[in-house]
């Protein structure tokens, strides 16, 4: 390549970089940073549930907030009213519900009264079905009871006591909670009373900044409240608390780990080159890399996940490698070759290194995890840009680099010499590594449980357990979705499902479920027919027993979902119903205590318009599938490398070259065993990178044009920078990331230590 055409390339690259800056300026205001941990997980594949419906539900669920407040003894409901008032002062909250006012309670009764012929409870339906006598006997029992309080007025207005029956059924549905002056109350084992409150976020809890504001506001409110009422306690539940925690973690990771990495890398460069120029040049290539990575990620995904940002800090180390490799070459040979000649000499190694690393990152695209896919795109675009920057610009920019010997030449020579001459090292180190690896593998456990990856803070976890114990409502995120083309179809399907639900509970597949209690129009009509059929006989039997009642009003009092949703009776239930503008509707049935997820999935599959959602089990399965898939892929990759080596170097050297690769993978996995982490999908992903990055070291040494000492130094720098960045991930508070860091750093360290093994023993042994 002529100097002229290279100059044109350099100018072209500058133009592209400027375009990237412009693109970033355009994209940034249109994009968002995503902090939801769930967004890192694969898009939910709900069996058949229309996407708009499942999205609608998950967005809604993510906005929910729930509190259990225990006032200090003797404070009564005054403390609760105070807490409620404080919540009302937080502008980000909506629809805060606490106690039901007497007026609302009256509305509640009035709604049931004006729709009594439509809202028949199961027990009444059973009695009516079995005959008029059953219902008239039941009415007599109520009327005669001294403590049931059936009044003459009630009998006159509702001779069949339908309102009374449906309210008694409602009580049965209270899931362990009782009513106290309009408040829902649960009691713990110590007899402490916990009052339930509910609220909604105005914005989606995925939104980092507003989520943070809300959590901060809630924290101050809670503190002020607990100060005002000593002894009062507040438990909270809501997705916003989890996502806020995750974003704090990520922020911590970015600021400390990212900063430590960058400082470490720059300090190393300064130390080794004793010049500011390499540092500035590294910074330049990193910046161009980050720019390109961000632009491409935003362009492809429209957002960038906060975890991508954390992990991409690690890419700093790799993108600095290219700069360092080129600058090392210039430092050593700057006096006797032109920059373009150096470029020509390094081009095969640089491009190979870039291609293998990029290929390794692109392999991450296979996993259906949006976070990893973003990382893959970010890394591929970022690393290519960093490498191109080195190739296009650095021959010019490195002109003023001071020339000198390879830093640490003596040590490098000794190290390489030892590899060639000492069998203790040549055979002993790989054998030792193999032993250590075996020891670690023996201790290794495989765990695909998603909970293992996301260690929740103890405080939140404890609250969660307490809330689940008090309310019987777990936060399992397991539910059935019943859906239909319109509300009526959905309700009919729900009715068809009910016997299966009762059976599932009886079989012990689940401990419980919550389903809305709104009958379909079809059912309402059937009930009305039944009522009209039985009523004359019931009235007659009551009159015979001495209770004179009028004939009941049996007009149709049909309830449509819209009316139900707008009424007070759906309070606490409306969340479970969703209607789209086009009429498609769905209802959610949260299920607690799932003991047989497979049976539930089968149940859903065999019912029309029903989907079973068990995010955790699904994800764990998915994790396990992809872990197996990636293991297989890694095996294929290693086999392919083995074939290439054998073809190029023949036996036995071809096999010897394979040893560092295989041992680096094993050591990466073994490190998990020693550190007590579990092997999961993320470990496999790290291994992919170990393979992709580690192979570079072998490539550098086997490059016929390279000088072993220069290669050794470049590799050394590459390893140290990689360890400074990936190694730092070990300190991440997110377990998935820290185990990712452990595998990477141990694997790469092994690859580095063993890479001189691939030096040809005899042919080159005498040259240096």
């Amino acid at each position, binding site marked *: 390549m002529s100097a002229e055409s290279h100059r044109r390339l350099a100018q072209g690259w500058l133009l592209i970089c400027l375009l990237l800056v412009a693109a970033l300026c355009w994209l940034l205001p249109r994009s968002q940073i995503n902090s939801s941990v769930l967004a890192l997980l694969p898009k939910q594949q709900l069996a058949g549930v229309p996407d708009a419906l499942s999205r609608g539900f998950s967005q809604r669920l993510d906005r929910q907030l729930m509190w259990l407040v225990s006032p200090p003894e003797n404070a009564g409901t005054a403390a609760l009213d105070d807490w409620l008032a404080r919540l009302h002062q937080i502008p980000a909250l909506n629809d805060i519900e606490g106690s039901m006012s007497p007026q609302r309670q009256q509305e509640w009764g009035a709604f049931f009264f004006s729709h009594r012929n439509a809202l028949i409870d199961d027990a009444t339906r059973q009695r009516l079905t079995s005959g008029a006598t059953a219902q008239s006997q039941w009415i007599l029992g109520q009327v005669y009871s001294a403590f049931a309080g059936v*009044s003459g007025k009630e*009998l006159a207005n509702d001779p069949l006591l339908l309102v009374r029956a449906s309210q008694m059924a409602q*009580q049965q549905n209270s899931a362990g909670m009782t009513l106290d002056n309009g408040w829902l109350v649960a009691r713990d084992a110590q007899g402490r009373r916990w009052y339930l409150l509910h609220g909604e976020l105005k914005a989606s809890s995925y939104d980092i900044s507003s989520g943070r504001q809300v959590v901060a506001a809630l924290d101050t409110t809670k503190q002020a409240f607990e100060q005002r009422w000593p002894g009062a306690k507040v438990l909270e539940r809501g997705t916003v608390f989890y996502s806020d925690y995750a974003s704090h973690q990520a922020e911590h990771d970015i600021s400390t780990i990212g900063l430590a990495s960058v400082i470490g890398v720059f300090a190393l460069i300064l130390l080794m080159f004793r010049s500011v120029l390499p540092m500035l040049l590294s910074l330049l290539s990193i910046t161009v890399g980050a720019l390109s990575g961000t632009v491409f990620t935003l362009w492809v995904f429209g957002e960038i996940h906060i975890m991508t940002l954390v992990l991409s800090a690690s890419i700093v180390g790799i993108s600095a490698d290219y700069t360092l490799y080129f600058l090392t070459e210039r430092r050593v040979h700057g006096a006797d070759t032109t920059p373009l000649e150096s470029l020509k000499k390094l081009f095969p190694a640089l491009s190979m290194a870039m291609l293998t690393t990029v290929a390794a990152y692109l392999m991450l695209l296979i996993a259906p995890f949006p976070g990893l896919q973003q990382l893959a795109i970010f890394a591929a675009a970022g690393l290519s840009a960093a490498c191109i920057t080195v190739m296009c610009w650095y021959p010019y920019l490195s002109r003023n680099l001071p020339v000198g010997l390879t830093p640490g030449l003596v040590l490098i020579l000794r190290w390489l010499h030892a590899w060639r001459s000492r069998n203790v090292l040549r055979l002993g180190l790989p054998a030792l590594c193999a032993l250590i690896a075996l020891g670690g593998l023996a201790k290794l456990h495989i765990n695909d449980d998603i909970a293992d990856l996301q260690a929740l803070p103890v405080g939140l976890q404890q609250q969660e357990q307490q809330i689940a114990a008090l309310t019987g409502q777990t936060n399992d995120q397991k539910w059935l979705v019943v859906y239909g083309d319109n509300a009526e179809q959905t309700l009919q399907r729900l009715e068809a499902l009910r016997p299966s639900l009762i059976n599932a509970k009886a079989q012990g597949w689940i401990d419980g479920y919550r389903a809305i209690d709104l009958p379909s129009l079809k059912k309402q009509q059937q009930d009305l027919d039944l009522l009209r059929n039985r009523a004359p006989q019931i009235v007659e039997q009551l009159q015979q027993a001495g209770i004179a009642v009028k004939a009941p009003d049996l007009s149709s009092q049909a309830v449509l979902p819209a009316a139900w949703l707008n009424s007070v009776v759906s309070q606490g239930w409306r969340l479970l119903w969703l209607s789209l503008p086009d009429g498609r509707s769905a209802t959610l049935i949260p299920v607690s205590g799932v003991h047989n997820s497979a049976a539930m999935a089968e149940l859903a599959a065999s019912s029309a318009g029903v989907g079973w959602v068990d995010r955790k089990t699904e994800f764990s399965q998915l994790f396990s599938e992809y872990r197996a898939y990636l293991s297989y892929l890694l095996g294929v990759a290693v086999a392919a490398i083995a074939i290439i080596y054998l073809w190029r170097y023949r036996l036995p050297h071809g096999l010897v070259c394979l040893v560092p690769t295989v041992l680096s993978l094993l050591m990466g996995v073994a490190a998990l065993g020693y550190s007590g982490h579990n092997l999961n999908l993320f470990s496999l992903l790290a291994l992919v990178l170990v393979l992709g990055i580690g192979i570079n070291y072998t490539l550098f040494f086997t490059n016929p044009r390279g000088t072993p000492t220069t290669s050794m130094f470049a590799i050394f720098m590459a390893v140290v920078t990689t360890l400074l960045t990936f190694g730092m991930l070990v300190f991440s508070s997110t377990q998935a990331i820290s185990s990712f860091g452990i595998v990477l750093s141990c694997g790469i360290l092994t690859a580095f230590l063993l890479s001189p093994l691939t030096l040809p023993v005899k042919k080159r042994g005498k040259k240096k």
Partner: protein
Amino acid sequence: MKIVLLFCLSLFSLASHAVTLEELQQRFSQQPVLRAQFAQQRSISGMSQPLNSSGNLLIAQKNGLWWQQEKPFSLTLLLTENRMVQTMAGQPAQVVTADNNPQMFQFNSLLTALFHADQRALEQNFTLDFTDKGQGTWQLILTPKTTPLNRLFRTLRLQGSAFLDNIDINDMQGDVTHLRFFNQQTQPATLTVAEQAHFVG
């Protein structure tokens, strides 16, 4: 129905010669078994005739309460520590447990409290007005102060001497129920085999 039991227990827990509520309760807590018959008259506004019913009841400290209405139709109510069963001829038994309907079962704790002479528990739900009427007779008026009790009842008036003899219930809707207990027996102090059978199953 829990409420029913509660009151029955409280009724019987009040024994004669007592001057104070505490003494009454303490004395009653020493009676392991009580048997009685009851007659009830319930007057509902707008109904020409009062509704009369009668039957037996049995209270055992260790087992709970068994209330059997015999006339005009049979209805049995069984209340134990953790469940309540109502049986009517020709119908499946209605079972309420503490888990599936804590609202109804809240009253259970009041009952237990009575058994243990825990006046505080009663006071959580009612305002108490105890009067010594002289010659061993007494009266206790309970005025509900919590929902849903205060929606149902205006007052409950308990009267007795050696045992609880009468309860008058004034409903909020103006209806009145008068309950009379008689033939009270505390011997034998343990349940007979036949009596035990009521609490099984």
